[in-house]
């Protein structure tokens, strides 16, 4: 790691020193001798102190909140720890900011004052307007000596991460055309007393079976009580497949809608299976969500996957890899905005 030398400042200082020496030679003044001494000693001392300070300085980076909502402000704390009794007016931290999900990144220099024997902290309020895992990394620190001649670098590489989740109160919730229709039917069934399940088998009555499960018609024919063995259809109908395809804005929109849907269902105490195509592992990531925390965990995992270009492949993959799922909600881009579409698999 190369240090930076500011030749311009050194030259100006050299000129000033030369003028002082010339004046001293001309006037032989004690005051000028003092100035000459100060000027001669200062660069050596300044650079030595900068080397010493560079070795002593350490950095901490903190992101106090691990999960933040999109469009909200979260804080990143940069702390320069200085145990020495030397201060610097200019310590720069190279801060690398990256969204691991969308692979967008940038670096900036943050210049901080560094007081002697103590911590100097600066809180950066970050406004995060896209979902994803945001990683803040302090790559190096650079100490400028007091006279501004050299900038000494030190490798740091410390990181802090924040998961950005879609905001709770989403104003534009996208289109829920198909999903809303299907879901309303489900609700209505529940209200009528149906349990939104399917008959898997018919068997003889076992004490304890619910009366409403008795298959009266068959029982009359066979003269023995027969009951319909029901299997819950929830795991089939509340499967949500989110599409991580398209531009980063499209994907951001899609996963926001996904998050909103999942959260709404979980708050309604409905079990949700969240699926997405993991491009890295070439399989569907399958997450069973019982609570909001499960949802957050699922999104945290999602953020380490990558987005892809082809939006059509996941439906085909579903058909071939998970044919047992008779229907699922496909959250994807439709007509330029996120939509939830119910897909029934034959």
């Amino acid at each position, binding site marked *: 790691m190369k240090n930076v030398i500011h030749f311009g400042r050194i030259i100006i200082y050299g000129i000033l020193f030369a003028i002082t020496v010339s*004046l001293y030679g*001309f*006037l032989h*003044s*004690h*005051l000028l*001798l*003092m*100035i000459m001494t*100060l000027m001669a*000693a*200062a660069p050596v*001392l300044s650079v030595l102190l900068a080397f010493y300070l560079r070795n002593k300085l350490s950095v901490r980076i*903190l992101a*106090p*909140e691990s999960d933040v*909502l999109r*469009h*909200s*402000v979260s*804080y990143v704390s940069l702390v320069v720890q200085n145990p020495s009794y*030397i*201060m*610097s*007016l*200019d310590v*720069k931290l190279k801060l690398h*900011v990256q*969204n691991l999900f*969308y692979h*967008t*990144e*940038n670096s*900036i*220099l*943050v*210049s*901080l*004052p*560094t*007081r002697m024997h103590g911590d100097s902290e600066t*809180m*950066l*309020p*970050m*406004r*995060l*307007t*896209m*979902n994803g895992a*945001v990683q803040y990394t302090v790559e190096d620190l650079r100490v*400028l000596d*007091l*006279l*501004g001649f050299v900038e000494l670098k030190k490798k740091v590489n410390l990181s802090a991460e924040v998961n*950005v989740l879609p*905001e*709770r109160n989403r104003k534009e919730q996208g289109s829920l055309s198909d999903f809303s229709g299907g879901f309303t039917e489900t609700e209505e069934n529940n209200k009528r007393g149906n349990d939104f399940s399917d008959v898997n088998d018919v068997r003889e009555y076992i004490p304890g079976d619910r009366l409403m499960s008795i298959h009266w018609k068959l029982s009359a024919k066979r003269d023995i009580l027969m009951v319909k063995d029901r299997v819950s259809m929830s795991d089939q109908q509340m499967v949500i497949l989110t599409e991580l395809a398209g531009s*980063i804005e499209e994907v*951001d929109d899609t996963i926001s809608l996904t998050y909103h849907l999942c959260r709404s269902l979980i708050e309604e105490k409905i079990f949700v299976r969240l699926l997405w195509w993991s491009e890295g592992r070439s399989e569907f990531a399958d997450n069973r969500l019982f609570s909001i925390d499960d949802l957050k965990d699922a999104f945290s995992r999602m953020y380490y996957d990558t987005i892809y270009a082809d939006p059509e492949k996941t439906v085909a993959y579903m058909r071939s890899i998970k044919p047992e799922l008779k229907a699922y909600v496909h959250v994807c881009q439709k007509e330029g905005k996120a939509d939830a579409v119910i897909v029934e698999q034959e």
Partner: protein
Amino acid sequence: MPSLWNRNKKKVSGIALCPGISIDESFYEMKEKRLKTLFMKGVIVYLLSMGSIGCYLSAMDCEFSAITLNIILFFSAIGCAYLYYNRIVENVGYLFLFAAFFGAAILFRDYINSGFYAVVNDTLEEAAIYLDMEGMQQYNERISNRYLAVTIAMCFIGIVTNILLNVYISRRMQYIVAIVVVMTVNLVPLYFEHEPDTIYSLMLLTGITLTYIMKSGQHYKVHTTDQAFETDKKNNLKYVYNIRSVRQTLLLGVIYVILCVSVMSLAFPKDTYDGSFPDNKYKMATMETAANLFALGLAGLFNFYPNTGGLNGGTLGGVSSIHLDYNTDLTLHVTPYSYEPIYLKSFTGAVYLPYTNKWLSLSEEDEKNNAYEEDFLEDAYEKHEKYTAKGYMEVLNVEAPNAIYLPYYSPDHIKTVYYGSRATYEYYPRFAANTEEVPAHDIPEQYLDIPEENFSVIRNFCREAGFSGTDDEIIEQVAAYYQENIPYTIRPGATPRREDFINYFLSENKKGYCAHFASAATLIFRYMGIPARYVEGYAVSYNQIVDGELLNEDYGDYYDGYSELGKTGLVEVNITDADAHAWVEVYDDRYGWVVVDPTPAAGEEDTVDFWSAFQDFFDDGDTDNAEDDDQGVGGLRIGDDVMRIVAIAVLSVFFIALLILGIWVLVPRIRYAIAYHRAGINDRLVMQYNRYLRKVRKSEKPLQDKMNYREQIEYLTEQGMISMTEEEKEKFIDTLQEAGFSDREIAEADYAQAVEYLKQKEAKDRQKARNKRKD
């Protein structure tokens, strides 16, 4: 339309880092502690200005009140720095400052002028000594008390320096300009091998060092908004100014400078540097030019000599002091003949113009020719009478004005001696032993005139002095009175505007130099009935003549006749400005116009400390009277006026401090109230919560480590500062997070509930206090 308050506030926006990630604009809400940072800048400016002025004055041995100057410069430097608090303060402040400065400059103009000239004159004196010059033309100091004048003048120069430096330091930390401003003038004493006092050297060096370090550190800018951070073109973040770092830099700078200076002073003591080095050839080469420059100003560089020879042609006043110029004005070849001084008459004043403060001649013929006396003495000489003589004086004009320099008594009253040329005057001296009387002749009645404006003052003066008797007795009495009661000083102070020169001298100032004594004596003699006229010229004393260079022991061509000194020789005498003089000619019935020199011998100049001089200033300078002497026994005595001024000053400082304190306390509250008033419901809750948190954090240190709302609320509930159920807690946290991080407005009810929680602690504290009182 933006309000005046907001007009200069730059609208800030967030800093986009990459898609979806930006630094929020609230980042700029972090404020620089501007009052404190400006204070530190003020300290740097103070170190530079005080160091610079202190170095110069101490090197030049100019006496001044160090405490007063330090206090004035410190507060003015801090005040100047505070002008950059914001645009309004800057604009209004500069107007106020310039108005105040202008007013004070008008009020103290004489002191500023005089003090400045005093320093310049001291510099010229040092130049004269170092450059081995015979004498220097010095500037007139209006104020006799140099200590006070120098202090006041330096205060003003210091304030100007502060204003100037403040522009370059507070805004741009221009160390080159600072170095040029503070160091250039200090090269002058260094040129004369005069070193400044160490304390001022330390101040100067510390100031320069800090300016350089601050510039190199790159964090010194003053913005229109007091935001703590700024961005560059590449969106890099830069803190603007940090008080703690600057304070520590100041400390480091001071330690470094003290350490270096101490070590070097031990190794190379300052004393060994005072002229111990042989001058180098380069410096030697500059000395002639420097001598010309110091003697004649910029004109000296062009070989232009505007010397007036110390004669004013009858113009009085406007001059506070005499500065001896030892340059040779005239060279005189003369044969000594008497113990009495030789007077060379150049100007004769007959009519005094009061308030204009000027003597006018009647006519050239009448003024410069003592024709009757000369004729009488010439006749006596021709007749070889006893105690008569005839001589010739050769006058060479070296640097004097083109004028007649007529010895007593000479017929050559039309011989003007031009610059660089010489003239020979024939003369017939009158000896005291010569008692022969000159035939009486008419004299113009103007020689008895006293201007109306002066009459009462002269009358009162003569009555008080009790002059009476014959003409000779009166002349003696006047001279004696002068000698006993009116001190001679070369720094009597200038006659104030709208005052008459003679009236002011006799009734108020009561001190002066030859022009004062001669002018007043002329009118006094006239009042007492003795015709008199005012004369200017050169007076060459016997000692001066004796010290002159002997040119030739054979003086036959130059002198013939009686001599009080017996056999002498031809002597060359250099006449300088120091020999310029004013005297009186009175008309004696027996001897015609005779010279009367009423000017008393010079005494020691008084030296006073600053505060007594200050008192003197407010007491109109009347400190030499008997009352003061009676009361001045056994300790410090300060007049009521001074006490009143001190009291006003103390009260002013107190109220200013109170005002600053009030502003310090009130401004954040007002700003909070304005911001609160403008804020939406979310921001209001956040503001109230932050305010509450700041208050609680003072007593609850662990709370300082709690970074988010959840941790903070959990801590507060654990500590019992806020009482609520788990469900309420969750809701409260949700409300806070929504208020802090979301664009959606929280519900009024949630806001009210949250505020209630925050008020719990205050209620508890009040209850606790009530219980304590009951106990």
